[in-house]
């Protein structure tokens, strides 16, 4: 087992030298981020697990081509988003997407009341539904910037677009998300 203290770059170098165990360190370090990104892109737990696994395996196969110009996480984000986008498109063609009714959404408050817990869960499901209805590119930019708090520069590198394009796309994506959530969150407000 490679020490957890070493950087991603060092792990990548070891992996490129043939030390396969270094990859396990990278998996443990990034699995949660990648899995959550995939889950929010797809809205399905099992699909997210499968896509995350495929993303890590693709990264392992292509590790020889990784030159280290960008962060490993950036590179890994790009791979995961590509897999998730492809899967999301194929799922969209197969069926009308809907948020799976499952108890995968964790409670943020450890001791919430029943009514509060139900309301929060419903809000999360609504948000997830809205994300699912967005274009994959819009959803990706929102998730990277707002959910993962990835800096604009890195988002630009992940999406391989200029920073200005990232900003305009993010603004457009937020407007689209607001429109999706308007009927639920702001109906009463507009009526007032």
């Amino acid at each position, binding site marked *: 087992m490679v020490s957890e203290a070493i950087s991603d770059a060092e792990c990548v170098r070891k992996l490129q030298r043939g030390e*396969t165990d270094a*990859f*396990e360190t990278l*998996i*443990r370090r990034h*699995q*949660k981020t990648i*899995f*959550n990104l995939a*889950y*929010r892109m797809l809205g399905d*737990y099992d699909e*997210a*697990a499968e896509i*995350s*696994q495929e993303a*890590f*395996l693709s990264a*392992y*196969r292509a590790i020889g081509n990784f030159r280290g110009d960008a962060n490993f996480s950036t590179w890994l984000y790009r791979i995961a988003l590509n897999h998730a986008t492809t899967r999301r498109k194929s799922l969209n063609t197969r069926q009308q997407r809907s948020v799976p009714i499952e108890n*995968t*959404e*964790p*409670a*943020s408050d450890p001791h919430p009341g029943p009514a509060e817990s139900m309301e929060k869960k419903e*809000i*999360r499901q609504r*948000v*997830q539904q809205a*994300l699912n209805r967005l274009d994959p590119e819009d959803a990706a930019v*929102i*998730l990277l910037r*707002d*959910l993962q*708090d990835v800096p604009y520069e890195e988002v630009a590198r992940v999406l391989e677009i200029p920073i200005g394009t990232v*900003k305009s796309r*993010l*603004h457009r994506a*937020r*407007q689209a*998300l*607001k429109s999706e*959530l*308007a009927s639920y*969150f*702001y109906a009463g*407000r507009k009526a007032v």
Partner: protein
Amino acid sequence: MNCEEVKAHLLDYLDKTLDTPTTTRVATHLISCAPCGAEASELADCMDQVTALPALDPPLGFAQRVMAHVREIEKRPTIWERLFMPWSNWTKWMPLQATALVMVGIIGIVLYQKDNRLKPTEPTNRTLSASVKPGTPSNESIPAVTNQTDKKKEAALQAPVALAKRAEQVAEKKQRSSPSSEQSQIAKREVEARSEETKISRRAPIQVQEAINMREPGRFSGEGGFAPPMPLGGLRQAAPRPGTMALDRVVPLGERVADYEFVVRRRPPQRRDQVESSSADALKKSTDEDTASGLAARPATPPPTAPKIESIAEIRFYNVAPEHFEYFKKELASEAIIETEPKPPAAKEKEIADLDRLLLIKVTILPPALPEPAAPPR
């Protein structure tokens, strides 16, 4: 700052990346402008909702599962290795390859044997030919007789083979030391064995198939010049003696239609000269006795005994060159009584004359006719 300018800076304002003076101006506008304030509020709310989405844990053992797949990929040979180093793991595949090779071999042998079984037999006759030394008497080489059972075709086909083998052994012995007494003993044994087989099979008619090629080298070019072909002498014999035979081809009876068919009858066992000499001796003896004892009572003549019928009929096939046909017919007439002589139509005769092959002649040999009861001597 107007609404358009605020909208331009709204993203940075919400991200809190604007400088302080710009942030103050945007905030002042948002307080004073209700629509801009509402939109900013709603966008901020959306961002908060997304940010508030909880982080889920990946499935348990996710890393181990991915690493297991990674180790599988690591073990698997790459396309390059598979293409250019196919023998790198040959030991793993060797049992499979060896089994496949053995299976292919077995299938090949089976197919080969099956193919041989399906091959049609050659149309030409298998010749049971006795090798005859040129110039030797015709009774030295005698056609072999084969018993054929109709029920067991294979046995019938194998019988000539066995006989041929036996005859070869006999011929070898004959070549080593060829006293005529040994030959006759061997022939006697063969006849006995054959008669036993006949008794066992209890089949009365014995069909004999024999084809003799008169074009065989040495047949007609001996010391004595144009020596007669061997088989005709055997017509007189009740049971043929074995000769040196070479089994070339055996074809079931009836496969070829004979060009000529003769029906002949064997002559009585005793030849005329022997009969004449014996009768002359008997006459002389009786004359002596008459002179010695006067007119004594003559001994009663023994009643005539019916000749033993060795076989009902015998069919032989001969391969004769067209130019030797007349000679063959003459020889046949000298050896046996021709009862039926073929008279093919003129067209067929011409067709036969134009043949480029040997004539196939079928000779049906009938047993000798019963001698008429001799008149009592006076």
